[in-house]
């Protein structure tokens, strides 16, 4: 048996190496690992006390301060303490049980509130809390049971020494003689053997707990996987809680069904499960801006119900949970007021933005209409006038100069062809037909084929975005390409179109000399067009290049 290394050897191996049946049965008594296991199980009692204090104090203060910015350092501190306790226990498990939990990976988050959100969404954090919860409920109960068994066995074993002073009675049978006391010795030995085997089993169980809860999992990649793993976490939480309650209730029933102590397992578990469910429901169902308040209110309600339950199962009498409701409830009310005010501010700002961008969009449309009007008058209309003149002259000359008339008619036909070509180019500028027919990918490829510069187009879209978004994205790319060809002196253009987090992203980069004016008429028009769709347009064009024009347009999710 590995005495120094601390590596666990499966029980099966110990059994198969033992030859004599008796030796086999009492073997655990002489193995150091048994005592290590026992030590770890017994350590569950102080760990349980610490965990109980930490979890309750932590979540209560978080609920109270949830509306203030203080909640962020509090959450971070709480997570650090949970981590400290969990890691301390893991270290103990490593030296006593020989399991090797890898150091947990915390997700960090950026920004002030982002850090708090990262804590709440961090699976490691929840798994550590789950572990502590198990350790303080099931672990505590098992440790108490095991120690009680050992104490009873030791008592029976040593009865021949102390029976004189306090002889145990079983009904009318008194162990008041040495002979009768000696009868207890084998019972004590048997108890110790059972306790030793139990310690080994509990050690294995604890090692499994540490392995399955304190080891970080690789982060799920897709949103769907994330949702599934979170739903699974909820199931595991619920089933574990239910299982623990059932187990403790069975133990309670088996031990005489007196005072229903498993309620002290049930209530904290119910509280934590309720908080878990609230967080899951709120993040899955509510829009982001309502989540903080909803979680806060839900957690406060859960804590209040928990305290009412505690009040109901204890002395009752003076209704002290009322005060906590007053305290926690007023925090929720303040939170609600702040949220409402902030939402009002945000709405006001939003209205302002919409007014500006709508004005921009209307101006842009106006300018566009004027441009089309001018193009029609200067182009097609002028051509038609010239055509009319040619045909009129031809009409006059039919009799006198048929050859001249024919020449004029031929000229007129050439003029019609020119006018048609101009009309086509104008129409393409207003709305390219291929964009409507085949989407932005085909339209940009056509544009790239027409461009005098070497242009690569990478479009990665599973489905077509809404038409206004697609059109705006197309014109961003088209205008950027036109600018690059006209002003930058670029030789290459790269266009990429993709979708990320409900945003359509268009990026056009050229290798030209840079120095594009973001407020020049073309780019300003584009910005107005993009902003009218709640998008953003960024232009990076340092002197010396390269120029990158990037638009992000919301397109549903």
């Amino acid at each position, binding site marked *: 048996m590995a005495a120094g290394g601390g590596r666990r050897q499966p029980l099966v191996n110990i059994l198969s190496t033992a030859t004599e049946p008796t030796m086999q049965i009492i073997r655990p008594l002489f193995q150091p690992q048994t005592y290590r296991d026992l030590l770890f199980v017994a350590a569950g009692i102080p760990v349980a006390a610490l965990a109980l204090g930490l979890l309750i104090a932590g979540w209560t203060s978080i609920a109270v301060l949830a509306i203030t910015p203080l909640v962020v350092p509090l959450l971070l501190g709480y997570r650090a303490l949970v981590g400290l306790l969990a890691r301390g226990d893991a270290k103990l498990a490593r030296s006593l049980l020989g399991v090797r939990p890898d150091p947990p990976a915390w997700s960090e988050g950026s920004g002030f509130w982002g850090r708090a959100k990262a804590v709440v969404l961090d699976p490691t954090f929840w798994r550590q809390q789950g572990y502590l919860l198990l350790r303080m409920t099931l672990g505590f109960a098992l440790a108490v049971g095991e120690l009680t068994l050992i104490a009873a066995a030791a008592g029976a074993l040593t009865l021949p020494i102390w029976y004189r002073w306090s002889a145990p009675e079983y009904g009318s049978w008194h162990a008041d003689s040495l002979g009768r006391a000696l009868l207890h010795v084998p019972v004590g030995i048997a108890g110790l053997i059972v306790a030793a085997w139990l310690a080994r089993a509990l050690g294995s169980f604890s090692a499994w707990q540490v392995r399955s809860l304190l080891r970080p999992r690789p982060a799920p990649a897709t949103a769907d996987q994330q949702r599934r793993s979170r739903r699974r976490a909820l199931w595991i939480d619920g089933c574990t809680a239910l299982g623990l309650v059932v187990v403790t209730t069975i133990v309670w029933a088996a031990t005489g069904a007196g005072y229903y102590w498993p309620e002290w397992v049930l209530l904290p578990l119910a509280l934590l499960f309720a908080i878990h469910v609230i967080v899951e429901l709120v993040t899955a169902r509510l829009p982001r801006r309502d989540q903080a308040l909803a979680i806060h209110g839900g957690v406060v309600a859960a804590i209040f119900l928990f305290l009412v339950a505690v009040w109901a199962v204890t002395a009752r009498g003076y209704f002290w949970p009322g005060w906590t409701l007053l305290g926690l409830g007023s925090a929720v009310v303040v939170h609600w007021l702040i949220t409402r005010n902030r939402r009002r501010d945000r709405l006001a700002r939003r209205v302002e933005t919409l007014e500006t961008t709508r004005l921009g969009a209307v101006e842009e449309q106006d300018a566009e209409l004027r441009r089309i009007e001018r193009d029609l008058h200067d182009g097609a209309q002028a051509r038609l006038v010239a055509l009319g003149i040619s045909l009129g002259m031809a009409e006059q000359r039919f009799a006198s100069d048929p050859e001249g008339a024919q020449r004029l008619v031929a000229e007129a036909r050439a003029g019609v*062809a020119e006018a048609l*070509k101009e009309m*086509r180019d104008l*129409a393409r500028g207003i709305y390219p037909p291929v964009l*409507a027919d*085949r989407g932005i990918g085909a339209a940009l490829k*056509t544009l790239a*084929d027409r461009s005098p510069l070497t242009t690569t187009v990478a479009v990665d879209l599973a489905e077509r975005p809404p038409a206004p978004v697609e059109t705006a994205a197309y014109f961003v790319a088209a205008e950027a390409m036109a600018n690059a060809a006209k002003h930058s002196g670029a030789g290459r253009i790269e266009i990429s179109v993709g979708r990320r987090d409900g945003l359509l992203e268009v990026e056009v980069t050229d290798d030209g000399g840079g120095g594009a004016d973001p407020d020049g008429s073309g780019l300003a028009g584009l910005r107005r067009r993009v902003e009218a769709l709640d998008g953003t347009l960024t232009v990076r064009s340092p002197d010396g290049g390269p120029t990158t024009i990037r638009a992000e347009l919301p397109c549903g999710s």
Partner: protein
Amino acid sequence: MRIVIAEDLALLRDGLARLLRDNDLEVVAEVADADALVHAVLRERPDLAIVDIRLPPTFRDEGLRAALELRSSAPETAILVLSQYVEHTYAAELLAEAGSTGGIGYLLKDRVLDAADFVDAVRRVGSGGTALDPEVVAQLLGNRGGQRLDVLTPRELEVLTLMAEGRSNAAIAVALVLTVGAVEKHIASIFQKLRLPPSESDHRRVLAVLAYLGTVPFGDTP
């Protein structure tokens, strides 16, 4: 030659029909949308259907889609697609669908202005040839094939352009004021320089050139 016309603008439809009848072509049906076109073609089994790319109800490319559908339901009817604008991707789709059978055309509506040329294209497509709008060819030659065509002389490039439009050797000779023999010599030189497979028909020749320019997949070339 029996022809069905599908064009939603009455003015243009009537003008087209008049132009064709003036040139001794028989217009057997004039329709205004894609469904009517499919019915008319299946009923009349014409030699040629002239189809506007944009038809009601959505005015996108249902003409093109109907044309592609007719290609399998009425393969003996040649298709000439007319459009306000040309896109070489559409040309590629049409030609890929046509396979090696021919009888496919894709022209700008502007080409109607040159009546003689247009009627020539109609007759060519109706009898199993090809007519590809010069602007499509220009798009292809100008951008995609630019570098690969450096080996050709300017005259050979002119011949290649007309060849890609689907014209016969005689027509190319007339257009470039050359003898048919000279045209044949140029064509042989082009095929040798670009390492194209020799093709017996004008249509297969178009496909070979377009495949060379990367427009239709190579698998469809003869």
